[in-house]
């Protein structure tokens, strides 16, 4: 009867440009993000011969390869822990899986250098195990430092990143597809390998990317475990020589390495679509583990023992010993205050900076300007903290009033953690349908009133979750804090670091435990605010 015409393609939800204020703020953020890498390039170009010599040295090539192998090993090991853990928590009848799900995400509150400290204090040269065994005449234990020790520590305190991306993906995978596959006669394992795993690919890749970049840029963990990763070598070079061009070149090389990893992830993700068709009626029936529940519980218990019980237990032990023997534990509250103030400031500034970027990317995604701003905002994602800190230090030395100020430190945090805040702000803005904002305008409200009365209240929880994430990451951050902290400004992180570097475990224990506690609270806020209403 009726011949329908081909529907005209109606593009993007809104035409007309973004408000000038939003565009200007976003442009400012983008320029700020671009500054560190550009500055490093300029700096390295100061003395091209020296820069080339550093970059082309045989030791630099070895360093690069060693660091890549390290990042790969940590990523692989973290996947080996997170994948079974996510599946056990989401898809089986494992006893206590809700509690396990929460506990298993807690190691995120333990910075890698605190984890390393705990391992050294327990199993290191003058550690608890050696002391316990010394009556038996054991003077030396096999060294836990080096490549394997560093890999173990980084794995245990980064796998929750993968758990965080894998669990929602597993929960969202449509169980009907699996039932279909089983009805064709494929077993559980074949179904998992051929159907579930491919669906988890994007989550696996994005979580793996987070871990690889974290490992690449982590400074504290590898340094304490005496593994010469790129960051350690770079830091030593910065501290020990006056060759700023060489350090800048090396920092640039590290940034390039991170970019290669990001590019690799984008390339492997490819153009395939993984959209989950939402709205399946019922959650999948949990897989009964039967007798397998004992090995499963042993696996979970082992992971939690190493990643949670060991660090907290060891630190608690040293704290008790310090209290008993009357070792002075000065000024942890001042440090805690400094930490919280800097982190809260960073969370606030970063979230405020993320909002205009997210507005552009969600509401005006068709525009080239929006995409450019978004890409630039994500550069911090790939830039190691050490690199950003060095770039800012080199730059700020020439700007007297900025050098060694809290403002510069907060700027570094904001540049580093902006991607996290933009990511959560995007998700929460996506939940505010454009028609709601238009309805408000139709009802006589001007754009600014619409933003404050509709957009902000509806995305507040998401923004809070993002701010908590930035707070948590800032609390744990070490290299940028070490390099950029103003004189007299000593955070928990720097305090732990200075006590640890000369094995004063007792002195490190109180700030470390305080740091873990505050971080865990931030993690709780993040989960609460991020939970669906």
């Amino acid at each position, binding site marked *: *009867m*009726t*011949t*329908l*015409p*081909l*529907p*005209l*393609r*109606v*593009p*993007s939800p*809104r*035409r*007309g440009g973004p408000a000038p204020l939003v565009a200007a703020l976003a442009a400012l953020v983008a320029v700020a993000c671009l500054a560190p890498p550009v500055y490093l390039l300029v700096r390295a170009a100061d003395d091209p011969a020296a820069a080339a010599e550093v970059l082309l040295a045989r030791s630099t090539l070895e360093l690069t390869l060693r660091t890549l192998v390290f990042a790969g090993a940590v990523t692989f090991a973290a996947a080996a822990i997170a994948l079974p853990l996510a599946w056990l928590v989401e898809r089986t009848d494992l006893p206590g899986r809700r509690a396990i799900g929460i506990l298993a995400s807690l190691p995120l509150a333990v910075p890698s250098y605190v984890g390393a400290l705990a391992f050294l204090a327990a199993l290191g040269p003058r550690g608890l195990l050696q002391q316990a065994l010394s009556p038996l005449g054991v003077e030396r234990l096999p060294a836990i430092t080096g490549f394997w020790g560093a890999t173990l520590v980084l794995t245990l305190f980064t796998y929750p990143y993968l758990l965080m991306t894998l669990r929602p993906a597993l929960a969202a995978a449509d169980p009907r597809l699996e039932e279909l596959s089983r009805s064709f006669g494929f077993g559980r394992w074949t179904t998992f390998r051929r159907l579930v795993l491919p669906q988890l690919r994007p989550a696996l890749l994005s979580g793996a990317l987070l871990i690889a970049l974290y490992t690449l840029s982590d400074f504290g963990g590898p340094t304490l475990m005496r593994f010469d990763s790129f960051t350690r070598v770079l830091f030593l070079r910065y501290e020990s020589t006056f060759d700023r061009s060489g350090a800048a070149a090396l920092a640039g090389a590290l940034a390039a390495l991170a970019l290669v990893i990001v590019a690799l992830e984008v390339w492997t993700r490819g153009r395939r679509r993984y959209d989950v068709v939402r709205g399946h009626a019922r959650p999948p029936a949990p897989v009964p583990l039967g007798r397998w529940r004992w090995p499963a519980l042993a696996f979970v218990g082992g992971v939690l023992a190493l990643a949670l019980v060991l660090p907290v237990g060891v630190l608690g032990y040293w704290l008790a010993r310090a209290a008993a023997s009357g070792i002075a534990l000065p000024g942890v509250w001042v440090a805690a205050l400094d930490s919280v103030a800097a982190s809260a400031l960073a969370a606030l500034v970063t979230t405020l900076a993320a909002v205009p970027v997210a507005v552009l990317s969600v509401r005006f995604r068709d525009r080239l300007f929006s995409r450019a701003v978004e890409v630039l905002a994500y550069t911090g994602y790939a830039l190691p903290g050490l690199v950003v800190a060095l770039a800012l230090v080199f730059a700020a030395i020439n700007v007297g009033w900025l050098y060694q100020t809290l403002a510069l430190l907060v700027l570094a945090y904001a540049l580093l953690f902006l991607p996290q805040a933009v990511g959560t702000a995007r998700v929460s803005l996506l939940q505010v*349908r454009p*028609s*709601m904002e*238009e*309805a*408000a*305008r*139709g*009802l*006589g*409200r*001007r754009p600014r009133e619409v933003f404050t*009365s*509709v957009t902000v*209240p*509806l995305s507040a929880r998401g923004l809070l979750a993002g701010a908590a994430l930035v707070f948590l990451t800032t609390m744990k951050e070490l290299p940028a804090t070490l390099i950029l902290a103003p004189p007299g400004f000593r955070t928990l992180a720097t305090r732990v670091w200075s006590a640890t570097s000369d094995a004063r475990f007792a002195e490190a224990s109180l700030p470390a435990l305080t740091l873990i506690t505050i971080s865990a609270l931030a993690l709780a806020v993040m989960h609460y605010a991020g939970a669906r209403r």
Partner: protein
Amino acid sequence: MNRSPTAERAVRADGLVCTFGATTVIADLTLDVIAGELFAILGPSGCGKTTALRLLAGFERPSAGRLTLLRDLVAAPSVHVPPERRGIGMVFQDYALFPHMSVGENVAYGVPVPGDRRGRVAEVLTLTGLSGFADRRVHELSGGEQQRVALARALAPRPRLLLLDEPFSNLDPTLRARVRGELREIVKRAGTTAILVTHDQEEALSIADRVAFMWRGRIEQVGTPDEIYRLPATIHAAEFIGDANLFRARADGGCVATPFGEYPAPAGADRVAIVVRPEDVELRPDGVPGRLVAREYYGHDQVLHVRLVGGALVRVRAGPRLHAQGTEVALALRAAPVVLVDDGDAEGAGAG
């Protein structure tokens, strides 16, 4: 169209054009809507009707043309009055209720004077049959109730023009007929001019005072539901609205031959299309003979597919009496058919 010239115009759109990049979504929107009427824009999906509504609301800017609401020029090449200063009320397809506010807060959102607020909210809630709902949360409501909240919220600031974008598409089919009637009654009692956009002809024909048929970014015909249905001005209108037998033929000397005889063709036309509604064909012993080849049975009536001796296939709406397939029948027209100029895909010039 056929209204008295003294009636006040609520909307006057004159040659509005809207393009997104290289795509022209609205080629020419020309409309007059009279104050107090319920006006429907009807068309298939993708014809530009939602964009037309968004142009009226001010969410889109036309690249050419002029738009006047009551006596105010709100859009022209150098003029753009933003949506918040147009005095429109909008009901979105997804209702776009604010989930962080109660029903009462939603409705109060657009009411400007704080002193008048409480009373106005109560008044509108009563009008829409929602008294007692003020403190309810939006997500506790059924689809029909949510739609009435959206309507109440749009009406509360006493808009000069109410715009409704596919307001029934999110409702259960069984609920639609009832809600349609309610909506018309509420809008009429509020005394507001309203423009409704829909792809559902039943919706447009059953509640609108006048209907505009839109096809590929142009208004092809405006008229009362009866005019639109009985006297379609273009082939697209004939095909989209209702069920139609369409015979294409060549006119010859001001006349065109149809399976049912010769009828006058529009002056100067060469190719024409003859539109015959299935209910305008009847079974009559002295008609054109044919054979029953298929039928669609609906209970209250049925549509018979009849192959005439000349080869033409004709669909006939008939009473529920059973006819076996292969039965010899004879068909005749109850009334003269509408003959339209058939000029390919461009808009057909009206006739009939």
